[in-house]
């Protein structure tokens, strides 16, 4: 197990290193002056020169790269060009919204998808299965901004259970903060839960054909017991893969939902930074997202090993 983790950690670091090089090269080394780009077409040459100086663009390439990456290790991401605040604070504020939102949405998706997928597989080719498959098809097909608007109409405008949008901040209290994230989390969870339920169902159906399920039945386990005790854990491997992908997506891909609910999330930050040509913010957020994806994949790998003993071979 120890060597497995070490091996994964090495590959994680290597991926991050490669990603940082690619981002840096695309943003700063390829032809085209970043400073000129940031200031737009009709910029004053003197202003461009001043910005270049401020961005350190006149230093050698290697030096700039080391400054940038080195900054990451000490938590210095530079100063946002448009907001005039440290990028670190910007990102930290947004993460406090995006991470809890993504976690809530994912938890919701898992809570819904697991039982639904298991029931569909256990009652395969029945009316129940057909209904579940139809519902999940619908869940994937419905655009989530539209579903979000329906939620607002029903629960904010109609029932007045939740506010229609905005985020009061965690200072107002954890429950109040979570309450304002519930509707967005539901809107984000619907398609994810639908996908996850379908993956769970098909992964389970695959394992139900395995010989060891028949062995379990021959021991006297009922069909349901065989599914619960033997099939589900074997089906978790493909399901974990999808969950990993979904979390990465939810972290930065919630931009439309963030807009519908006026949430200050990471998706909106990167969208605004791109629109305002704030390359300092873009560069750092992108590297951060890459790091998030890589770390999530690392966690998924660890989860695989926890599920499947064949993956945690002992070091000789």
């Amino acid at each position, binding site marked *: 197990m120890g060597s*497995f983790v070490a091996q994964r950690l090495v590959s994680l670091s290597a991926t991050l290193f490669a990603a940082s090089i690619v981002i840096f090269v695309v943003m700063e080394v390829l032809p085209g002056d970043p400073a000129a780009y940031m200031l737009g077409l009709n910029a004053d040459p003197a202003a461009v020169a001043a910005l270049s100086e401020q961005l350190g663009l006149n230093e050698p390439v290697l030096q700039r790269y080391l400054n940038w990456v080195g900054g990451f290790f000490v938590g210095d991401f530079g100063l946002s060009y448009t907001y005039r605040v440290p990028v670190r604070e910007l990102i930290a504020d947004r993460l406090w919204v995006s991470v809890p939102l993504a976690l809530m949405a994912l938890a919701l998706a898992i809570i819904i998808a697991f039982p639904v997928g298991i029931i569909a597989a256990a009652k395969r080719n029945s009316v129940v299965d057909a209904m579940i498959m139809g519902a999940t098809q619908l869940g994937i097909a419905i655009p989530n901004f539209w579903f979000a608007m329906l939620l607002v109409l029903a629960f904010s405008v109609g029932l007045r259970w939740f506010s229609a949008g905005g985020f009061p901040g965690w200072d107002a209290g954890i429950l109040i903060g979570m309450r304002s994230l519930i509707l967005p989390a539901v809107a984000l969870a619907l398609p994810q839960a639908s996908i996850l339920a379908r993956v769970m169902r098909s992964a389970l159906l695959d394992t139900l054909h395995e010989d060891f399920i028949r062995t379990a039945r021959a021991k006297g386990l009922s069909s349901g017991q065989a599914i619960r005790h033997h099939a589900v854990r074997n089906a978790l491997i493909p399901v974990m893969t999808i969950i990993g992908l979904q979390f990465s997506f939810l972290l930065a891909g919630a931009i439309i939902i963030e807009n519908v609910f006026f949430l200050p999330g990471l998706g909106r930050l990167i969208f605004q930074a791109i629109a305002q040509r704030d390359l300092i913010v873009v560069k750092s957020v992108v590297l951060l997202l890459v790091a998030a994806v890589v770390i999530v994949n690392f966690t998924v790998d660890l989860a695989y090993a926890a599920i499947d003993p064949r993956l945690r071979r002992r070091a000789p």
Partner: protein
Amino acid sequence: MSLLQVDKLNLTIGRVPILRQVSLTLGQGEALGIVGESGSGKSLTALSIMRLLPHGSTVSGRIALDGEELSALSEAEMCERRGRAMGMIFQEPMSALNPLKTIGDQVAEAVRVHGYVSPREAYDLAQETLNRVGLPATRFPLSRYPHELSGGQRQRVVIAMAIVLKPKLVIADEPTTALDVTTQARILDLLKRLVAEDGSSLILISHDLAIVAEMADRIAIMKDGAVVESGETVSLFRAMQHPYSRMLRAASTYVSRRQRRLQASEGHDAPILDAKGVVQEYRQGPRQLFRRSASFRAVDDVGFTIRRGENVGLVGESGSGKSTLARVVLALDAPKAGTVILDGADLLESRGPERQALRRHIQAVFQDPYGSFNPRHKVARLVAEPFHLDEGKLSGAERRQRVEEALVAVGMQASDADKYPHEFSGGQRQRLAIARALITQPSLIVLDEAVSALDVSIRAQILDLLADLSDRLNVSYLFISHDLTVVRAITDRVVIMQDGRIVEQGETEEVFANPAHPYTQSLLAATPNLERALAARQAGLEAQ
């Protein structure tokens, strides 16, 4: 009183009738062998008794176990019977165990699901039973996972799960078919001992007449979903009534008649294949980042020759290195050391077009013909595949003609060229694979377990075909198999491998009659033999 009574059992799956009027009886402590080829319904008979049939099955007839009508029981009541009153052992030990659970958990589960015993008691019983099946706690603690065990050891775990509650009826469905002969002999001995100790009755399902004759007091022979003949083992074999039974028996010990066997004095010309000092190693265990990982020597300094027109058998158990050696000979893998001279040219040193030309002289037929055919291509294209090794490009008409000739040579129709592989049976597909190997007019064909997956009657036909082709075309075979009976039937000379080394080689008849090496002796002793089994059983009957 009989323990199990199956009366006029009929089974249909969907609309397809599978079993017709199957009746069987099994006495207390008795062993019943069910024999038949694939599709005869022997496995589904067993699954009907367990009521573990696939979806869409309809069953009629009655099944009574220990005086209790099983067909009247609810599914929940059947769950109580399974594992407690009747246990089942399956064919594939590799996939019959849940890879994510320890062997202790899986054996203990068979106990816990049936009653309110404490976890402690369940694990104690699991440990005791694993000891009984030859997996002592000192070497095989309950915390082992299936992937840490060999095939034979996994089958012992499966047996432990089936017998842990000492069921009155044990059903074993081809329990040793996936295992090596020496492992098979040990597992069969174990099974015999366990049912005797527990006073259980045994149903043994097998395609192998010799195994059944060794294990079973009574035998039922099945064909196309019906029992064609049944009775006490010795008298059934001594006077077989049904033509199918007689055919099955003849095919199981079939020796193809060859026009001539190559004599030792013949063939002084250069050998067609000359392998010298072949060494092959594989990395063992996970890749290490900063260390050289341990390597495993799969083939260790192996040399042998094949003369023109000679059939050489390569025999060994799994892990002996025979398939690794075959891959080297076929130039699919480069060995760590050694040379392979094919038709006077160095195969391993050859490159590019030269190797392509050499490859025409050596072709291969593998165990699973379906896996080696692209299902989307027609036979004409599949059989013509090795033509890309040809230097001179053939015209379409010539190519077609060669394909048709090859098809006819293996006993198929020229018109079969326009069909798809799924339209053929297993035996026919193996004929197609042989046609594909013949099309470049090779001097050597490597047959890697080429008849192992076939039923005995089909196997006899394919062996005849191979013998006939060898006579007519003077082609040599390297015949790789774990099945000594088949090797004896078709080869002139035999090479025995163990742990990557050749332990014995010589004229086939000589090696089989007077095996010199202890390993060869143990292989021969472990190989089931119908006559030997019948004689032993007869002696046992007379002694009583």
